[in-house]
């Protein structure tokens, strides 16, 4: 079996570690490129959202490279993502691809089901390795998330444009190569020091070094928030404009919420976000609609200078959130902007809006002082 899965930001490193430790051959699709996008949009329904299209592109490229099994997450709607495993399977079958698709459904109080699905992938004899595999995966996942958070805090203060990105990318390669949680820790520790050394300030990480540096939160649909290829590298671009970025979604937090706690029905932090969102939106609208609202309220309470929502074109939950965002923005006095993204050949429009948004925030910050 040669297993493959779609890209999601830098998380392929953790997912790859999981399956490889379990003794499964992994065929990693190349990082999403224009070719991925063209393959995806050529073979997808026009009004499907970007996550489906890029996913199709990833699978086609992986199948070309010899993959024969696809792992995909399921879901229970109303976000269309839950349907995409089936849509993608049919599209690929229609193209004459030969493969097997395994769908991991959310456990919803039945951890045994998830376990059984995993056993089906790796075979019963290897299940004993599961604990080690999960430990390594978890260490990589949390290391990636921690490093990303540092990157977002330090990028505005890098000595030379691009330094932080270079260190971050080199560190990811080292985390990818690490064979044990201990090695992951070491790589992450080195990365942290290396990042500090390419910065102008050597203050505490995570604290705003410059009180005038704008702080902007990124909210929105999970794939768009996490995948730089899809969101025009919004984190990097904002960082290079001098903005400290706060991302509302991290997979390690998400995994705790949606896999572990969902499996055992433990109280979830997302409940907190639900509470925050309640004055504006008290229904589950699918996807990250409620989280987008809740996170925006939370960011306003924390005193961030602005919020940018990123959503794929035709995303219903985010369309609902977008209209509500205008009201939160007025009520709580936090500037908010929505970027609806689809297949782009030029980033100019996005860049113009980002620049204008940052200018706007920087100017009002200057004035308040």
């Amino acid at each position: 079996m040669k297993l493959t899965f779609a890209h999601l930001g830098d998380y392929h490193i953790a997912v790859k570690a999981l399956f490889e430790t379990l003794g499964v051959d992994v065929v990693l699709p190349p990082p999403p490129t224009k070719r991925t996008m063209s393959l995806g949009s050529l073979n997808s329904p026009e009004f499907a959202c970007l996550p489906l299209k890029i996913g199709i592109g990833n699978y086609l490229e992986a199948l070309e490279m010899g993959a024969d099994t696809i792992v995909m997450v399921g879901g229970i709607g109303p976000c269309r993502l839950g349907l995409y495993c089936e849509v993608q399977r049919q599209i690929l079958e229609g193209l004459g691809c030969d493969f097997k698709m395994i769908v991991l459904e959310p456990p919803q109080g039945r951890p045994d089901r998830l376990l059984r699905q995993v056993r089906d992938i790796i075979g019963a004899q290897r299940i004993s390795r599961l604990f080690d595999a999960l430990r390594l995966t978890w260490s990589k996942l949390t290391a990636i998330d921690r490093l990303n958070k540092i990157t977002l805090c330090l990028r505005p203060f890098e000595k030379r444009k691009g330094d932080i990105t270079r260190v971050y990318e080199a560190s990811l390669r080292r985390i990818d190569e690490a064979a044990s949680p201990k090695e992951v820790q070491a790589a992450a520790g080195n990365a942290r020091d290396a990042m500090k050394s390419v910065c102008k300030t050597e203050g505490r990480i995570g604290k705003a070094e410059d009180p005038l540096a704008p702080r902007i939160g990124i909210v929105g649909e999970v794939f768009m928030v996490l995948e730089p290829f899809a969101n025009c590298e919004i984190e990097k671009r904002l960082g290079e404009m001098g903005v400290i970025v706060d991302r509302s979604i991290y997979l390690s937090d998400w995994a705790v919420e949606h896999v572990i706690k969902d499996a055992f029905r433990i109280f979830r932090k997302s409940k907190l976000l639900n509470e925050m969102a309640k004055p504006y939106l008290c229904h589950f609208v699918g996807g990250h609609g409620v989280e987008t609202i809740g996170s925006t309220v939370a960011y306003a309470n924390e005193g961030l200078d602005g919020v940018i929502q990123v959503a794929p074109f035709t995303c219903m939950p985010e369309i609902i959130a977008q209209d509500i965002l205008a009201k939160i923005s007025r009520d709580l006095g936090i500037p908010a902007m929505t970027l609806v993204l689809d297949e782009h050949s030029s980033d100019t429009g996005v860049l113009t809006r980002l620049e204008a948004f940052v200018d706007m925030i920087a100017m009002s910050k200057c004035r308040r002082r």
Partner: protein
Amino acid sequence: MAGSGYLGVDVGSVSTNLVLIDDKGVLQEKIYLRTQGDPIGAVKEGMKRLRATSGNIEILGVGTSGSGRRLAGVILGADCIKNEITAHAVAANYWMPGVRTVIEIGGQDSKIIILRQGTVIDFAMNTVCAAGTGSFLEQQAARLGIPIDRFGELALMAQNPVRIAGRCAVFAESDMIHKQQMGHKIEDIISGLCEALVRNYLNNVAKGKPIEPPVVFQGGVAANAGMKTAFEKELDTQIIVPEHYDVMGALGAALLACEAKERRNGQSSFRGFDALDRHYATRTLECTGCPNHCEIVNISMDDKTIARWGARCTRWDNTGDERNCLS
């Protein structure tokens, strides 16, 4: 005219505008040109005319704006490269301190900017839809055989504006043809089109943002009195069109260049008028370093590369010219 001043250049999809202001921000010279798909040519032509009219004026700073701002910035050696939203807001607030709403409709995009106490607090921009922009109005004027500068005047002569669907340029056009074949008067159709475009603007760009007076209307389309009247009718408020409505982006860029002077210790990176006699060229190449196949744009002055962009990675960053590092 001799002396010194700040230059603002706005390279838009349809027009390229140059503005020269003195150090108090007073407009000395303005040049409005058609970009005609050749931004480098338009900038060169504009500079040539400026040199002809203003003689050997000393340029203390250069600001660029508009969708061609980077290209123009590199060619001129700009001190400040700013997006058109900020530039328009700065210019509107300079011209009318206390402005609360800016409606800007240009050749290819339209924007709304909301200001309070001189600071932008909200904005929106529409670029994906051609309805309501200057290009569409021009195209319709050409189709009807009316010179674009008479469009507004005719609209004002309408007695019974017809209802036209303004949601989409394609629908609007077929609706107009339909109305015209039914025998409606051309003034009524044109006026109806203006009203449709205003509705389209309010629905698709302004989207419920609070449009409070004073409202300033700028950009090339502000020349159209029919559009101004349609806005006034729909919003029930006075619409102010600034004297230099057509070059507000360039004016904003010049003001920003003036403001940026302190940050540069008074030094400008302007390449000088003579540099415009040099040969500038753009060359596109497709990078084959990865499957992304980025389209790299290479800008050269004579035979020297002065800027490059379009790459997603840092591979093409180094050009050897420090000047293009601002952007």
